[in-house]
């Protein structure tokens, strides 16, 4: 009982110097691996954009009133966000915990687990905010019209990147071995990635799949980015932002819980 109240008191205490310390560590490390990270997080969705955009684009010229390359170009922003947050969070967290024991070193300094998790998620969210813009920039080169609304894309990418980073950290926290990730990738991330309205609109799907799609945070990121490019839909888009914020907050707490279990005996 006493332990429980002590833990509660520590919970939620986020000190700025602790967050800054962890972020600085990531930033300095990033200087040694930014090329490969930038490469995989941006080239992957760009290839999707080009392959689907031109492959399908030759069969389907228009979807929902947009040219197909515009449809996919805006949709793959969410893909880039997913690839640059959930995947590095899963693998990076596991490697830092299991093989590099980085977290042991950080937690011996005046940093608590919630600060560590929060700073790591913020870092990946910031990165996702930048990487997420790449497909949009590529699409601009292929004829997407610039719009003022696009300036909100880094923000949308940041919010959803934070949620996916926390998702990845939580998965790494619960996973017993790195092989467990295959289940998450195949059973969770791949379906979410495909049924997000990125490559085809959800309204052509059976009703149950449409309902399921509304529960997919990735779908809301896709729709928000389309809103940013082609015009927002008012309160529906606000609702989507709300869903992404809730998704992020919930996964944030779950990630902290999972990592506390893992890091503190």
């Amino acid at each position, binding site marked *: 009982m006493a332990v429980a109240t002590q833990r509660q008191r*520590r919970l939620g205490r986020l000190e700025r110097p*602790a967050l800054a*310390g962890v972020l600085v*560590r990531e930033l300095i490390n990033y200087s040694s691996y930014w090329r490969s990270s930038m490469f995989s997080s941006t080239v992957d969705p760009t290839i999707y954009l080009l392959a689907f955009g031109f492959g399908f684009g030759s069969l389907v010229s228009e979807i929902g009133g947009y040219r197909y390359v515009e449809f996919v170009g805006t949709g793959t922003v969410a893909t880039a966000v997913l690839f640059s947050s959930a995947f590095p969070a899963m693998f990076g967290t596991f490697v830092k915990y299991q093989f590099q*024991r980085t977290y*042991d070193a950080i937690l*011996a300094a*005046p*940093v608590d687990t919630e600060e560590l998790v929060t700073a790591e998620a913020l870092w990946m969210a910031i990165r996702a905010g930048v990487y997420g813009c790449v497909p949009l920039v590529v699409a601009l080169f292929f004829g997407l019209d610039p719009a003022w609304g696009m300036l909100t894309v880094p923000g949308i990418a940041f919010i959803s990147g934070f949620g996916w980073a926390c998702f990845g950290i939580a998965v790494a926290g619960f996973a017993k071995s790195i092989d467990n990730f295959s289940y998450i990738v195949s059973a969770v991330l791949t379906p979410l990635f495909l049924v997000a309205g990125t490559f085809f609109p959800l309204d052509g799907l059976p009703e149950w799949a449409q309902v399921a799609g509304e529960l997919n945070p990735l779908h809301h990121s896709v729709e928000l980015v389309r809103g940013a490019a082609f015009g927002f839909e008012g309160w529906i888009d606000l609702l989507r932002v709300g869903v992404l914020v809730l998704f992020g907050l919930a996964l944030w707490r779950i990630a902290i819980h999972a990592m506390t279990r893992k890091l503190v*005996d």
Partner: protein
Amino acid sequence: MSDELAIRLRGAVKRYDEITAVDGLDLDVPYGTCVGLLGPNGAGKSTTMRLLTAQAIADEGELEVLGFRLPDESKQARAQLGVSPQLDNLDVTLTVEQNLLVFAFLYRIGRADRRGAIERALELANLVDRRDSRVDKLSGGMRRRLLIARALVHRPRLVLLDEPTVGLDPQVRQGMWALIDALRAEGTTILMSTHYIEEAQRLADTVLIMSHGKAVAAGAPGELVAEHAGRQAVEVYGPPNRLAEVEEEARAAGLRTRRTGTSVSVLGIDSADGGAPEGERRPANLEDVFVLLTGEEID
């Protein structure tokens, strides 16, 4: 709350499922001293270290570090604490200096003092020339020194060294001892765990012998030896049947023995000179104490 003790544990217990890793441990580390935790692998030394940084939460007992109660006030304690872990957790793709810079931030050293703190740590660990080397290009000994430098970058009042020389070559180990000794001379309070007897004997003001999560004896190395193992031992070499004979004779004479690989040590012979067998006389040491008290061989 204690003014004289940097670490104060009373009845600390830590259980992992079936295993009780730390089992009612009392530990005092007075300011300005170097205390050695001595024990074989699995004695609970590393768990004790984790308790002190609140990376493990004790199931029972009172724990105080630098006057802060654990686990509630652990973060305040950690701000003034340096930890050199048993398992290397440096950022291997960063340079020596970058590793120190990261910890200068984690330990909240102000912008004005950061450069000076890093220079001081580099000098202390004798790594000034290697500041721009990537960690994965360093030798094992240099990595160990960097781990210690990283723990000292914020001038902590207390340093925890978990097996600081494990896995090092003998001559490199002596270099580490010189570094730890220099720290001690500066007045830094040190808690060091080790399973090398010689290390504890050379560096520690007091030694706490651990076995199965408990403290079985504590005191200055010399006093522990005098108290438990007497002044001298005789080491007898020979074929196995000869060694068994020696053991039997010694037991009959009321002396204690222990096997040391190819020989038998007959202990505490200064009190029974007449019954001592022929062999090499040597001063009694901490290892004798350890074996006598725990019945376990170290290493």
